[in-house]
Structures are given as C-alpha cells and as structure tokens.
C-alpha cells in the first residue's frame, strides 16, 4: 500500500526537497552565467549575425 498511506507522509518534505534541488541547480547556473566574461558573451551572441552569401541577396 505505498500509495496514499505511507507516501502521504512524504508530502510535507517533498515540496521542500523539490525546491531545494531546483534552487541549487538554478543558483549554480545563474552564478556561472553571471560570471561569463563580457567579451565571450559579445562573441557568442553575434554568431547568428555573421552572414553568408544567401544573406546578401
């Protein structure tokens, strides 16, 4: 009977664990992204704008 009985006890902590997992992942990614060098960002964001012969038509 792992459904609705034993597992109901989980409900209180599950939401917190989920939030914790997301917060850690999000935090790490946000930190890494924030620390990306500005020149690297500039170069990357302009990659799609480099034209080929099709774009001159």
């Amino acid at each position, binding site marked *: *009977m*792992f*459904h*609705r009985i034993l*597992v*109901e006890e*989980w*409900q209180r902590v*599950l*939401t917190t664990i*989920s*939030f914790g997992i*997301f917060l850690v*992942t*999000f935090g790490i*990614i*946000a930190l*890494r*992204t*924030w*620390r*990306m060098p500005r020149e*690297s*960002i500039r*170069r*990357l*964001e*302009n*990659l*799609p*704008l*480099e*034209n*080929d*012969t*099709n*774009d001159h*038509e």
Partner: protein
Amino acid sequence: MTNTATKTTIEYDDTPVRQFMIASIAWGIVGMLVGVLIATQLAFFQLNFNTPWLTFGRLRPLHTNAVIFAFVGNMMFAGVYYSTQRLVKARTASKFLSQLHFWGWQAIILAAAVTLPLGLTRGKEYAELIWPINIAVALIWVVFGINFFWTLGRRNERSLYVAIWFYISTIITVAMLYIVNHLSIPTSLTHSYPIFGGVQDALVQWWYGHNAVAFFLTTPILGIMYYFLPKAAGRPVYSYRLSVVHFWSLVFLYIWAGPHHLLNTSLPRWLQSLGMIFSLMLWAPSWGGMLNGLLTLRGAWDKLRTDPVIKFFVAGVTFYGMSTFEGPLLSIRPVNALAHYSDWIIAHVHAGALGWNGFMAAGMFYWLAPRLWNRPLHSVAAANMHFWLGLVGILLYVSSMWVSGITQGLMLSATHENGTVLANPNFLDAVTSTMFLMHIRALGGFMFLAGFIILAWNIWKTASGAQAVNGTVEVFVEEKPKAMGLIGGFANAPVIFITLLIVFAMGWGALPRVASGICLWAFLGTFMAMIAHKEFTKATWGQWYERLLENALPFTVLTAVSVFIGGIVQIIPTVIIDTAENIEGVRQIPYTPLELAGRDIYVREGCYNCHSQQIRTLVGDVLRYGDYSKMGESIYDHPYQWGSKRTGPDLAREGSKYPNSWHFFHMRDPRQISPGSRMPNYPWLFTDQTDIASLRRKIEVQRKLGVPFKETTKDEIAASCLAQGEEIVANLKTASAETTPDREIVALISYLQKLGKSEKVGPHGEQPAEPAKTEPPKTAAK
C-alpha cells in the same frame, strides 16, 4: 605563438533544408486537413461515413502524429540543418546521411499515414505507430544524430551557440524517451504489447508524452528562435546570459513534469506532487525565454508592421508565453480537476501547436524561401493575409475550446444536496450544451488551414522557375585545440567533489541513523577538502565550465545527465516496485481469450480517444462512475487505456452496467440509445469476424509480461471463445438482437462487460478474501 589559420570557402548543403521545408508544408496541410475533418466530425457524426478508416478514433492519431512528427518534425529538421551549418561554420558532414534522413523520415510518415487509418496501432497517444515503424524511427533518429554530431566535430567555430545546445538536448532526450516508451513484445508483424502495464504504462507514457511536447515541440523550436529571430531582427539576442539560464533550467525541469497528466488518478501521490511542483517551476525559465525572444526586437519594433517574418515570430513567441503560462496553471491539482478530460486541454495544446509551432514554422519558411531560391518572396501581401487568417483562426479555436472545456468541467463535476447528488447526471448534457462551440472550433481550424494553403502557394510561386542556391562563406580554419574528451571532461576536481557532496548529502537524508551520521561527517569532510584543494592548487573551476561549452561530447553527456535525473527518480521506483504487492487491496481479474480479442478491437478503433478508463479521486467522478480507480484494477492492461479526454463517459466500471443488448444497439447506432450522441456508428463490427487465430501468440506474450493467463492450446482458446460467444449471442437473442458468436461485436461486448471486474485481495496480494465485487454508481448517471 604563430597564427596557423588558413582561409577557405565553405559551401553549405542547403538541399536537405529545401527538402524538409517542402515536406513540412505538404504534410502540415495533410495533418491540418485531417484535423479540420475530425473537428467537424464532433459536430456532425455523419462525417464518419460509416467507414472504418474514416472514423474519429482512427483519424485522430493520424492528425496528432502528422502534426507532431510530419509537420513540426520536418520543420525542425529544416531549421536545424540550416542554422547548425552556419553556427558552426561547417558544411553538413554527410550528404548521404542527410538524404537517408530525409527519405527515411518521409517513408516513416507515409507508413504512419497508411497504418493508422487501417487501425494498426499500439493504443498509446502519440506513440501509436506499430513496432516496425518504431524501429525505423529510432534508426533514422540515430542517422540524424550521427550527421549532427559529425558536423559539430568538423566545425570551424570553437564555441557552441545556445541554439546548438537546444538541438543537442533534443537529440539525446527524444532518443531516450522514444526507446523507453516503445519497448514492446511483438505478437505479429503489425501488432505488439508494450512491456509496461497499468499504472507503470501510464507513467512511462506521460513521461514520454509530456516530454515529446518539451523536447520535440519546444526545445528545437527554441533553438530555431535563438537563431532565426536575431537574424530577422538584425540584432543579437536580448540577453545571452538569460538564454543560458533558460536552457539549463528548462532542460533540468521539464523532464520531471510528466505526471501532471495523471493528477487525481491512481498514480502514487508523491509522483503527482513532483509533477505539479516541477510544472510550476517551469514558469520561470519558460517566461525568461519568451521575454528574451520578444526583447530581442528592442529598437526594431517598427519591423512588426511591415515584415511578415517578424509578425509570425512575435505572435509565435507570444503564444509560447501563453501556452507555458497555461501549462503550469493546468498542472495545479484543483485546476486540473476542472480542466482534465475536457476541451480546455484541447485549447491548450492547440495554442501551442498552432500558435507556437505553426507560426514559428511560417516565420521561418518566409525567411528561408527567398534565401534558398535567391528570389524575393512572391507576395508579402499574401503572407500578411496568411498571418491574419491564422491568428483569427487560432483565437476562434482556442477561445471556443476554453469555453467548451470549462463548461464541460463545471457541468460534469456539479453536485446538489451537499455534494451527494450529481447536478447533471446525463453525460450527454455536457456534450449537447457545447455543440455550437464545436462549429466555431472547426471554423477556426479551417481558417488556420486556409492560411497555410496560402503559404504553400506563396512559396511555390517564389521557388518556381528560380535557381536553388546554397549559401557560401569564407572562414579562417584554425588548428583545433586539444579536446577535453569524456575522461578529461569528468575526471576532474569540480565533478568529483560535487558528485561526492551530492552522494553524501543524499545518504545523510535517506540512510538509517548511524550511516546517516557517517554521511554527514563525510559531507563536511568533503566540503573542507574541496576548500583546501581550491586554496592549494589555486584552481578556478569556472575554466572547466568554459571549456565544457567548447567541447561537444562532454557537454552532451552533461545535458544527458540533467535529463536522466528526472527520469530515473520517477520511472525506476514505479517500474521496479512489485505491482502484485502494491495494488491497494484490489486486483484486476484477467481477461478471457474472447475478452482479450475484444480489447484489441477497442484499441484498434481508438476508443481511448474519447473514453477514459480512470475514475479520479474527485466527488463528481465517484458519484457518476463509482468508487475511484485503484492501482490494482488495471495492472494487467498492456497497454493501459486510462485515456486523456472524455468526449464520452468514463468506462472504467462499464461492465454489467447495461445489458449486452444495450451495447449491441449502441454500437450499431449510438443515437438509438443515447439521443444527441456524437459517437460514430460501427457497422463493420457486425460483419467482420473476430481474429481468434492470433490469440495464442497474444496470450503467450501476455504471459511473458506477467499476466496470469493459463497455458492453453489453440483449440482450447477457440473453444473458450466459442462458448463465451454463444452465451452472449443467446442473451442477445432474448432482446431481438441477432448475430453469431464469431462476430467482432460479440468480442467487444465481452470486453466491455468485463471492465471494472476485480477481486479483493490481502495487503500483499494474497488470494481473494471475499468474492469479486463491483460497486455500481451511486446515482443513475449515464
């Protein structure tokens, strides 16, 4: 240091881009045409034409598969082939693989277009295609993957732009989802049973189904957005940093959200909660991405008035925002109680498919056509007309389905007398009350289709007589720096320390007292060691991450890890759990051979497209259909048939609710029994013979899957079917219903009368404590 870069000219291979684009437009029109037909069938049942291959149940899978895999699939491949070459400054690695990919994919679509109307199906939504086609899909996907990664390997641009990240996540995740959800054991060349059953099958199905939306209809189109929107606007993406956060958050979160399709069902509550919470958290990255797309137009909003490409992109991204707002909203359990099984969900998916996918496709095609054929777009006015026709069409479609869905949800859950009596006991009241909205929906769909026909004409006129051209570019080819490789990517301090920290933290939380304490100390020790390591070596871990972004292989593995985590946490416990011991005291009674044959007819006709077999833990459901469904009641169902939409009532406890003759006359002409019903007639069930010959192999496969069928011979199966069939025929005769035991209608009646039959068992699945009992509905609901 000497600069060894050499200048060279690269000619891109744009042939597959043109091919996929044309295929997408052609199949898109087919898929939308079928959509308009089945939408009209819901208003006029006569349009089912009493013909098997034209009935709603068989055509609806054709519509969904055509739109997802043929229209969006081909569009996505066109976008990926075009943008990847330009972003990595390399020609696609293999022309042969590109052509194999294109023609293989079209052959798969053609096979689907033939088999689905013939009723050859696996009976799982968006996973209906039969097993030989499944294998072909997996092989062609691998061909696509090899060609893509091979191209990355030959790239002349070190960094991987964020669009490429989205494509990588698509290739990896779709492969994983598709393979797991299509694991089956064949019974013949055209039929198989999925290895999962009941609640397990439901979970795996929606883990796949939801993430098909996420990783087939969303992530590749986001990659396309991040490439084509800056191109069309002539300026870089608003915030590259935000796009990075968008990617990782989306990829990490999306995979967990599947169980929100199974809220209030017999799926374990902890999974329902996980699905709901992660769906809510998806709001943030989705809206981050949407705003990033829209704000890319900063300073270029004037183009919105004149450039149809920008119009389509802006509307498409806005619909992405709308859909990703509505999705989490619908995942909140009480909202889902109202919306699920109703037309509200249909509105939601069409806002995504028509608004997001359809408009992004149109914008991309209008942008690509002049470049691929070296000629201006034939008619900007026609493109603008397409935009307005499509936009009004979507709005009519979505708004009518919102109203219809909320009406259905409210009517079917409404109660009187302090929640003890249904306010609308006749299910058909909800169907007839929303009938005029079905007409509006069909009109909206037709307008959207008309817009796409204009697009097809416009691009045809642009391309006809023009020269197809491939783009070329001059690049500096540099000597490639040493790649990290898989070992270099992961056998290093940041990965090792973080893995240890996660393992010890989990052990601290999950293990018994002493072991938990050891893990806590180990966690603290690892943390101290990590600080010391950084201090002594002066290591900057950021460099590892920066290098990772330039190394496709370890980056792909990291992406795969992000998506695997959610799948592992949700799927593994549910799949390995002993279903016989976790059935909530109720166990399904296995089918007889004739009932199994009847069930296969039910699956073949696609009854699950309109009827659920799952009574939710909600007052309205329980009052209407009986006690809520337990896990044990469908454990032997391969495939599960819980459904996702109730155009007709739930059938979980249909057995013994009506006499055999009721089903007989109902299947012949539903309106004779239920005036106002939209269900098709099924005259062929009264003339076609039940396939008894295949039952031996089918039962053999079911036994392998753990269904407790007795070992029987072919003759015993035939005798059993005949005996049960004769019994039903004799009973039908008393109500002036004439047929013979070998007709399909008899097998189907035997199955319908078995629905909801279960036995009570002990807490660990012991033999029945008392005879089988089926609880009837508490009110006279139809």
